[in-house]
């Protein structure tokens, strides 16, 4: 891809190289359509995926403009990390959260359309008039030792202070995000092993495993409760789901086993 970019730079006179122009005219509508679809889509997941589309086209633009490194960073950081983070949060808060179409402020949407289109037109025409005659000189001089080296030279000499400040900012942001997303539990809220064990063996709680349904019974239906050693039914052995299905009360009632006199009586 850097070959393509350098090829584009060699022909950096007034004429636009055909390959570059074709790429731009294919990708620019995709990027713009993705952006417009992103702000219009009702579903948040669709919005995120359309923005991924736009960001990928932007990455290709950067590569095309003699910036292969920044293009790769765009693809890796934006589409790889940031957009996936967005998708994570959309899934966390529920992807069914859709925007309502009801306007709270009257005429807000119309004003937003006018503002957005007007702003785009103002910037676009201003830029087109201002820089329409400017041609790219190309970065072949700055890219002489490779794009990465050119950026690194600037990054570690002229902008070293900004670079260090950015690293501090990243660490601060990481810690801040961690603190914000962390749920702090009150000391008494979380039961520790000791409390759990005590609760299990307190009076009234049966600590052993449940007996399966149909144990010591003549029927192996899941609705048949197990019989305890003293001859009584144990309700705990029957799943709560069984009576909850669409059965009549007589059907749902635990079935008695042969030879047991306490028909239907459950303890």
């Amino acid at each position: 891809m850097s070959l393509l970019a350098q090829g584009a730079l060699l022909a950096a006179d007034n004429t636009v190289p055909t390959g570059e122009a074709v790429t731009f005219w294919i990708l620019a509508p995709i990027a713009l359509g993705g952006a417009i679809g992103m702000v219009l889509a009702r579903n948040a997941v669709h919005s995120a995926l359309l923005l991924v589309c736009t960001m990928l086209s932007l990455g290709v633009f950067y590569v095309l403009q003699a910036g292969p490194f920044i293009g790769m960073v765009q693809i890796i950081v934006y589409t790889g990390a940031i957009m996936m983070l967005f998708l994570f949060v959309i899934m966390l808060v529920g992807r069914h959260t859709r925007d309502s179409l009801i306007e709270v402020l009257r005429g807000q949407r119309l004003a937003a359309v006018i503002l957005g289109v007007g702003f785009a037109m103002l910037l676009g025409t201003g830029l087109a008039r201002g820089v329409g005659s400017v041609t790219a000189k190309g970065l072949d001089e700055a890219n002489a030792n490779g794009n990465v080296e050119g950026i690194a030279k600037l990054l570690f000499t002229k902008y070293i202070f900004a670079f260090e400040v950015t690293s501090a900012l990243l660490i601060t942001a990481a810690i801040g995000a961690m603190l914000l997303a962390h749920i702090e539990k009150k000391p008494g809220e979380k039961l520790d092993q000791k409390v759990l064990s005590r609760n299990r063996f307190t009076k009234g709680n049966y600590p052993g495993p449940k007996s399966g349904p149909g144990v010591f019974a003549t029927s192996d239906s899941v609705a048949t409760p197990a019989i305890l050693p003293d001859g009584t039914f144990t309700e705990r052995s029957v799943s709560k789901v069984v009576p909850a299905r669409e059965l009549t009360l007589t059907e749902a009632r635990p079935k008695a086993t042969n030879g047991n006199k306490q028909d239907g009586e459950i303890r």
Partner: protein
Amino acid sequence: MHPVIPYVLAAMLFGAGVYGVVVRRNAVLVLMAVELMLGAVNLVLVTADATMRLHTGQTLALFVIVVAAAEVGLGLAIVLQLYRLRRSIVTDDVGAEPASAEGEEEPVKVVA
């Protein structure tokens, strides 16, 4: 290469981002529209870089990407906090009273 095509494209992307920030109510989507505006600015920086024989624009774009990454991490953490507090991320409800007991639904009882 005429830099005017990417410039105008960047202006339009920025306009779409402005529209998104103004109109969308979902907090995550507002953040995404902000990202779109940042992407448009990055395109301007990289394009301007190709018209000067320096790497200043690309370096600045790199910084912008890093700051955007940090911003998104913090912003999404704040959105998550908002969701925990209000059970919704609609920006209209931010000033409202927190829905204290509303969020916890009672388990649905199955009647036989």
